[in-house]
């Protein structure tokens, strides 16, 4: 399991190659990789976005993401997972976040990947600030994200 919080961009195909060809994947009979990449929107709430700044809580962020991975691993039969989340200044259509999960069969990887994203959205300490033609504004948390998380309640 891996967690990276970084300003630099990431290369999806490189990350998937590493996960696909790892010793662990081979040993545990990998048969599926599910990945999700989240992007900076170019429009939000009717305004064009010029720039997005992501702030986070160093130390807690990594711990929160690791806890989410551990929870996913306890719920589904997955081989490995990776979360990369960027911070700092981003442009519209830049990649923000990558979640990738490997497993023997697709069902487990699909569910675990979605679970990790839903929990990341509501539990990991990141905050987005948008720059529009009307100035800067903090992005408001969405009720729909809480609803998405709640459906995983055991």
């Amino acid at each position: 399991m891996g967690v990276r919080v970084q300003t630099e961009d990431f290369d999806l195909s490189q990350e998937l190659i590493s996960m696909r060809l790892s010793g662990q994947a081979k040993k545990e009979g990998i048969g599926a990789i599910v990945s999700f990449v989240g992007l900076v929107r170019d429009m939000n709430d009717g305004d064009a976005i010029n720039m997005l700044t992501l702030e986070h809580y160093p130390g807690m962020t990594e711990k929160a993401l690791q806890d989410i991975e551990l929870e996913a691993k306890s719920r589904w039969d997955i081989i490995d997972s990776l979360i990369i989340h960027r911070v700092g200044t981003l442009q519209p259509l830049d990649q923000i976040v990558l979640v990738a999960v490997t497993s023997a069969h697709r069902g487990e990887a699909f569910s675990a990947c979605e679970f990790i994203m839903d929990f990341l959205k509501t539990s990991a300490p990141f905050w987005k600030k948008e720059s529009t033609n009307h100035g800067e504004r903090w992005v408001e948390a969405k009720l729909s994200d809480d609803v998405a998380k709640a459906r995983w309640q055991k």
Partner: protein
Amino acid sequence: MISKINYMNIKVLYFARIKEAVNYSTEEVDLPSDISTVTALKNYLSQRGETWGNIFNGKQIVRAAINHQLVDDMAVIHAGDEVAFFPPVTGG
């Protein structure tokens, strides 16, 4: 008889719009030892003036973490803890 007030030292961190409102990110606070929960700390900080009152008067959602763990308002604070206040998260 005069009762002696004990203090405990904690670190308090602020993030995002709360950090911008108070104009700094980190401080050490010598907290009277009867202030022992997140709710009590919020009330204590809200008495610092209008800016602080507006943050901690309950009208906006303020989440808290103790030592990197999300907690609710009843959570207990101990000496040496790192307590953080921030708005609902918006990552991903």
